[in-house]
């Protein structure tokens, strides 16, 4: 259905010839953009329905009773399914600390949340297939769990701004009892809100991906970022941290890079670094934690992502997943 829609738009309306290189690329672009936006809308709808049962308020109550390790794991799972936009980071952080959630467990939640979410998963599964999609899901959670455990073990409670500990809430506000109709309305509103926010990134990402597909020099990329270069993962993460994008914009670019011979682990770690660590997020986090903890946060998460990159490059050589 989407295929014939793309045919109609590109060949009939725009009058491009299917046999030309331009016609083919434009068709590819229209097809990919439409497919991904349709899949995203459907997935966001269903995940939002599930999400309406997992508010961060509820999450904090669950996590306050958990010990280390189990807590880190549960926090990471919650990070995948919880509604969480970057504007909620500070209230969530304060709320978690106030509810008695250990610092390391709080970080497991905060790290996993931007790396693994429904948008990333839809794009990964549709552009890369289930094997790489699942690898990303598992390793993104692993980065969150390990990062949180390490930060928890370092005993950095003093590096949180003092006022955070002085907040005393009147207790979590009452949980709204939502009817199914309200949940469905919530899910529809989420689809509208998220799609209107990310469609530009999807288009730009797929556009850059298409350019890389058509014009990037494969030999060069394979030489410098392929399996042969042991520094490639480090370089990928180094490039990824200052670049700021969300999963929607990064994944199509990553897919094109992988096709051009960039190694699997290098691609995945570049992608994770781009979405997990960014300047705007540090500015937000600075409101609740001191610079030293921000630096430790970047170092810990960055190293975990580098570790994931090397592991995948190794696994890929051994089992040849990317092909």
């Amino acid at each position, binding site marked *: 259905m989407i295929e014939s829609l793309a045919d109609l738009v590109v060949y009939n309306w725009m009058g491009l010839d299917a046999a030309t290189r331009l016609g083919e690329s434009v068709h590819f672009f229209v097809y990919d953009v439409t497919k991904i936006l349709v899949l995203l809308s459907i997935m966001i709808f269903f995940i939002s329905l599930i999400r309406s049962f997992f*508010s961060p308020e509820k999450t904090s109550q669950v996590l306050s009773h958990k010990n280390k390790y189990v807590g880190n794991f549960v926090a990471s799972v919650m990070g995948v399914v919880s*509604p969480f936009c970057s504007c909620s980071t500070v*209230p969530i952080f304060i709320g978690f600390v106030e509810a008695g959630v250990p610092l390391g467990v709080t970080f497991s939640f905060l790290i996993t949340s931007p790396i693994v979410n429904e948008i990333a998963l839809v794009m990964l599964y549709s552009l890369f297939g289930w094997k790489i999609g699942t690898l990303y899901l598992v390793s993104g959670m692993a980065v969150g769990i390990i990062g949180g455990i390490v930060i928890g073990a370092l005993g950095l409670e003093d590096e949180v701004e003092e006022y955070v500990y002085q907040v005393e*809430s009147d207790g979590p*506000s009452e949980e709204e009892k939502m009817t199914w109709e309200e949940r469905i309305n919530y899910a529809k509103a989420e689809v509208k809100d998220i799609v209107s926010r990310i469609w530009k990134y999807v288009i730009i990402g797929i556009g850059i991906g298409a350019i890389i597909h058509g014009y990037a020099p494969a030999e060069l990329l394979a030489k410098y970022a392929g399996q042969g270069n042991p520094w490639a993962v480090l370089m990928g993460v180094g490039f990824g941290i200052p670049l700021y994008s969300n999963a929607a914009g990064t994944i199509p670019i990553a897919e094109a890079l992988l096709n051009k011979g960039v190694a699997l682990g290098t691609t995945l770690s570049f992608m994770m670094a781009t979405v997990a660590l960014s300047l705007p997020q540090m500015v937000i986090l600075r409101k609740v934690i001191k610079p030293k903890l921000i630096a430790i946060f970047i170092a810990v998460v960055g190293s975990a992502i580098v570790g994931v990159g090397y592991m995948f490059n190794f696994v890929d050589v051994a089992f040849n997943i990317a092909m």
Partner: protein
Amino acid sequence: MMKITVYGPGCKNCVSLADHAKEAAEELGLDAEVEKVEDPAEIAKAGIMSTPGLAIDGKVKVKGRVPSTDEIKELLK
């Protein structure tokens, strides 16, 4: 007088929630004051983690989503 409080650090959703709340109060002809709370510590103190949040006379009614003007009218009645 009724007091409507909108909790949120000032993102797009918080602004539209405040607009909806004002509209709802006006359409019902209520004598209501819409107050915006942007300080994260204050937001957390109210027990809200997912923004935006809406409270009527100090009682939190909605959090983590932007209710429509009609829905807020129902809550105000």
